[in-house]
C-alpha cells in the first residue's frame, strides 16, 4: 500500500517513527512535496479562515496527497500530548476533525488515530495497533516489530539532532541515518540559534528560507529541537512553572539555554501569525534577552511570504551580530 504523509506539523518531529513503522510493514511512504505556492494557496482556500498559517499549509499538503491517485491513505494523526500533563495546541489535537470537515469527499482515505507521545511504549503500541488494523494488519507480532523499527529510527534521528544535524537533513537521509551520524558538522565563525515549533522553523518556503539564508552567509544554524531536554530543564525556575504545551516549553527553555551559551551569537524565533501559544514563549524570550543581552529577533510568518522587509531584517540582524563580535559592517 502507499501511505501518504503530509509534509507539515508533526511530520517535522515524528517522521522517522512513522516512516519506520510503515516501511517495516512493507508499505511505501509518499511525502507531499515541500511547501510551494500551490500548496500554500490550496491550504489557505480549504482551511477555515481564522486559523494559523501552519495549519493552513498542512491542509495544502493533505490536499496534495489526496489528489494523488496511487496514494491509498493519508496519515493525519491526532497528537494530543507529547509529555505527561503537557498537551498540544487545541488545533493540533483537533487536526483529523479539521481535515475531515475540509475534505469531506475523501474522508475514507484519511488514516487517523489518537496518539500520546513520550508516555511509554504501551500507549504507542495501542495507537499503532489501531493504525495497523485500519490498514488491514492484525498480526500483533508484526505490529510490534514495525513499531520497534520505527522507534529505533526515531532514536537514531534524535541522535543526529543532538549532533547538530537539522531535521531537514534527517528527512533527506532517512534511509541512511548512520552515515548522517558520522558526518561532521561544519564549524563557522558565527552561530545563530532558531527557537520555535519545528514546523515553523523548517518550512523554508514559509519563513523566507531563514536556514538557507543564514548558512549562505557562513553562519552555523542550530535549532531548539537539537537540545537534550535535560540541558534546559532548570529554566522552569525562571518561568515559575512549565507551560502547558510541550513544544512551547522546548522553544522557551531551549531558547533561554541558547541565550546563555557563549558560542551562540543570537537567537531568532520563528512563529506563525495568529498563534497565541507562540506569543507566550516569545514574550518569555524577550524578557530573558533583556537579562542576558543576547540579540533576539522574532520572525512571524504569514501568508505574505518573501516580503522584502523580512530579508532586510534578517540582514540587519546578521550585521548586528557581526558588529557585536567586533567585526565591522564592511569587508567581512
Amino acid at each position, binding site marked *: 500500500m502507499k501511505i501518504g504523509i503530509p509534509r507539515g506539523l508533526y511530520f517535522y518531529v515524528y517522521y522517522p517513527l512513522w516512516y519506520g513503522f510503515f516501511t517495516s510493514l512493507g508499505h511505501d511512504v509518499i511525502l507531499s*512535496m515541500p511547501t*510551494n*505556492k*500551490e*500548496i500554500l494557496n490550496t491550504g489557505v482556500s480549504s482551511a477555515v479562515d481564522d486559523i494559523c498559517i501552519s495549519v493552513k499549509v498542512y491542509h495544502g499538503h493533505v490536499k496534495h496527497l489526496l489528489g494523488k491517485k496511487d496514494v491509498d491513505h493519508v496519515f493525519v494523526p491526532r497528537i494530543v500530548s507529547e509529555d505527561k500533563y503537557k498537551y498540544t495546541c487545541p488545533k493540533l489535537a483537533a487536526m483529523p476533525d479539521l481535515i475531515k470537515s475540509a475534505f469531506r469527499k475523501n474522508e475514507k482515505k484519511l488514516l487517523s488515530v489518537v496518539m500520546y507521545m513520550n508516555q511509554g511504549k504501551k500507549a504507542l503500541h495501542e495507537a499503532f495497533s489501531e493504525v495497523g488494523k485500519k490498514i488491514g494488519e492484525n498480526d500483533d507480532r508484526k505490529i510490534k516489530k514495525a513499531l520497534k523499527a520505527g522507534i529505533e529510527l526515531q532514536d537514531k534521528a534524535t541522535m543526529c539532532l543532538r549532533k547538530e544535524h537539522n531535521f531537514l537533513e534527517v528527512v533527506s537521509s532517512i534511509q541512511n541515518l548512520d552515515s548522517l551520524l558520522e558526518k561532521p558538522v561544519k564549524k563557522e565563525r558565527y552561530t545563530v540559534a532558531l527557537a520555535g515549533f519545528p514546523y515553523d522553523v523548517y518550512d523554508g*518556503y514559509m519563513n523566507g*528560507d531563514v536556514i538557507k539564508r543564514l548558512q549562505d552567509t557562513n553562519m552555523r544554524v542550530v535549532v531548539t529541537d537539537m537540545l537534550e531536554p535535560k540541558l534546559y530543564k532548570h529554566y522552569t525556575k525562571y518561568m515559575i512553572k512549565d507551560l502547558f504545551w510541550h513544544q512551547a516549553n522546548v522553544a522557551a527553555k531551549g531558547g533561554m539555554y541558547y541565550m546563555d551559551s557563549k558560542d551562540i551569537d543570537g537567537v531568532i524565533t520563528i512563529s506563525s501569525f495568529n498563534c497565541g501559544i507562540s506569543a507566550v514563549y516569545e514574550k518569555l524570550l*524577550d524578557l530573558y534577552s533583556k537579562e542576558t*543581552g543576547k*540579540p*533576539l529577533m522574532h520572525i512571524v510568518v504569514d501568508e*505574505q511570504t518573501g*516580503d*522584502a*522587509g523580512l*530579508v*532586510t*531584517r534578517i*540582514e*540587519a540582524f546578521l*550585521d*548586528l551580530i557581526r*558588529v*557585536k563580535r567586533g567585526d*565591522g*559592517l*564592511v*569587508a567581512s
Partner: protein
Amino acid sequence: MKELALGIDVGSVTTKVVFIDENDEVIEGLYLRTTGSPIITIKKGMTQAYAYITKKYGDVEVMAVGTTGSGRQLAGVIVGADMVKNEISAHAYAAIREVPDASTIFEMGGQDSKIIFIRNGAVVDFAMNTVCAAGTGSFLDHQAERIGVPIEKFGEYALKSESPVRIAGRCTVFAESDMIHKQQMGATSEDIIAGLSESLVRNYLNNLARGKELLPKFVFQGGVSENIGIIKAFEQAVGHEVIVPKNNKIMGAWGVAMLAKREIEITGRQTNFKGFKITELKHDTRVFYCDGCANNCEVYEVIENGETIAYWGDRCGRWSNRLTSKVRISKK
C-alpha cells in the same frame, strides 16, 4: 581630481542620491520622489547630481558606490555597487557618525518606519514596520489632503495648537473617521493637525517600541523628520530632547556611501562603478513566472542594452546562477 563616493537609497516612495567627499561630508544630496520606475529616478538623480558637482569641482572620480533601501539590489546592478546594504545598518551608521552617543533612532519614511536601538555605538535591536500605514509619512500625506492644508505647513499648524484633540490612531481608517468627527464637532485645523501628529507618534511607539527601553539621546531622521509638529510630539512622548541631525532626509544614502568607501579602502579593490555613462544606457526590467517547478517563482530580470545583467526572485538559483560571471564582466 576630486575623489567622491556615491550612495543611493531607493525606497518605495522616494529615492535619495548622495555624493560625499574625502571627509565623508555630503557635497550633494538629492531627495526625489520615485516616479514611475525606480531606474528612471536613479538616473535622473545621478544626472542632476553630476551636473552640479562637475560644475563646482570640475572632473570627479567616483571611487566607491553603495546602495540601500528596498530597491538596493536593483540599484546595485544598475550602477555597479561595491556595497549593497540593508537600510537599518545604513541608517544607523550615518546616525552614529552624527550623534556618536545616540541610544535610540526614530526613522520615519514615506512607506515604512523603523526604530533602532543603539548601545555603545552599535545596533543592539531594531524593529520595522512595512505593512501598516499608520505610523508612516503616507498617513500624514493622506490626512493633509483631507484637511486641505499642504503637508509642508503641517508643522507650523501643529505648533499653533493650544489643545490638540485626541485622535484614535490605531489604524488609518479609524483615525480618519475620528478626525472627521472631531472636525464636525468644531475642532480647529490647528488642533486637529496637532492631534494627528500626536496620534502618529503614539502609534509608531506602540507598534515599534513595545516594551523596549527608550533611552536618550534620541535621533529622529527620515522624510517625516522635517516636520516640526512631529518632532515636538516625539519630544513630548519621550520627555526628552529629540535631535534631528544634519542630512536628516538622506541618512540611508549617506550611510551606505560611507560604508562603500570603507569597504574599498579596506579591501583595496577597484570600484565596480560603471560610470556616469549608465545614465545613457537603456535599462528594462521584466517580471515573469518561472514554470520550472510548482513554486512558480516570480523572477525579476534586469536588461541593460538588450543584455540580461541580473535575475532575482528564483528560489533555486535556476536563473540567477546563470549570470554571476556576466555581471562581473559588465562591471567596467
